[in-house]
């Protein structure tokens, strides 16, 4: 991998991601918003590729663009009585806007005040093989705990959404 992140793909992906995120908030149709979430996830996967995090880009596509979007669309489908229910008012509130802007200002101040780290990313970037080796050696315990978390979430989701007679 080269020791630089080119600007043009970054700007294209950043604009696509931010536009998609804005459309999630600004679209008045829940189904359209779910598809904009899908677009944002794909844009972020592209940004991960730019950062030479190939494995996470793959996981992002499979988990978020694949599983989570389908799950969102299924839930929307199951909780709508008719096609017209998908269209709703925009629900934009001033309070939420003020809070979000305050958080943005605080984040901007922190980013500006940071010590400058390396402007150029280092040349060496380990590949997927090294990622896997570290995952099963140094990060083996968190990996196992993550599997338990997923199992508990699976059982819990079935328990909550499942049987009618309770």
């Amino acid at each position, binding site marked *: 991998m080269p020791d630089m992140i080119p600007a043009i793909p970054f700007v294209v992906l950043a604009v696509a991601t931010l536009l998609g995120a804005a459309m999630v908030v600004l679209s008045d149709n829940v189904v359209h918003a779910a598809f904009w979430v899908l677009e944002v996830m794909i844009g972020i996967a592209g940004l991960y590729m730019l950062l030479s995090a190939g494995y996470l880009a793959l996981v992002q596509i499979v988990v978020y663009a694949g599983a989570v979007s389908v799950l969102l669309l299924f839930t929307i489908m199951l909780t709508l009585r008719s096609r017209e229910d998908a269209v709703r008012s925009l629900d934009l509130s001033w309070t*939420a806007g003020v809070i*979000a802007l305050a958080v943005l200002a605080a984040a901007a101040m922190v980013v500006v005040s940071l010590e400058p780290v390396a402007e150029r990313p280092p040349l060496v970037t380990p590949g997927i093989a090294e990622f896997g080796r570290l995952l099963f050696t140094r990060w083996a315990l968190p990996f196992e705990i993550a599997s338990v978390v997923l199992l508990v979430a699976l059982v819990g989701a079935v328990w909550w959404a499942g049987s009618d007679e309770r």
Partner: protein
Amino acid sequence: MNVGPVAFMGLAALLFCIGLFGALSKKSAVMVLMCLELMTNAVNLNLIAISRFVTPVSMTGQFAAAFIMVVAAAEIGLGLALVLALYKARNTVELDRIDRLRG
């Protein structure tokens, strides 16, 4: 032309705040969950970008992001199951109408 870490951090901050705005203002439970996903993705983007610039060999941020993805997947799964259960019990996903605990 190349891009430094500050550009990624700024992008992540913007994405996080768009998600925060949506999560606080939307009145449909499914929309709130979508906006929460935007927020966790902003955090992951930040972790991976800083990991690329600061710890490129040990990839600490990438592992943190991978485990956050696990937790976020569990969260969205349970959240949507909860929305379905609420819909069964109350026949609505509007957060304004789930007010049984209101005094």
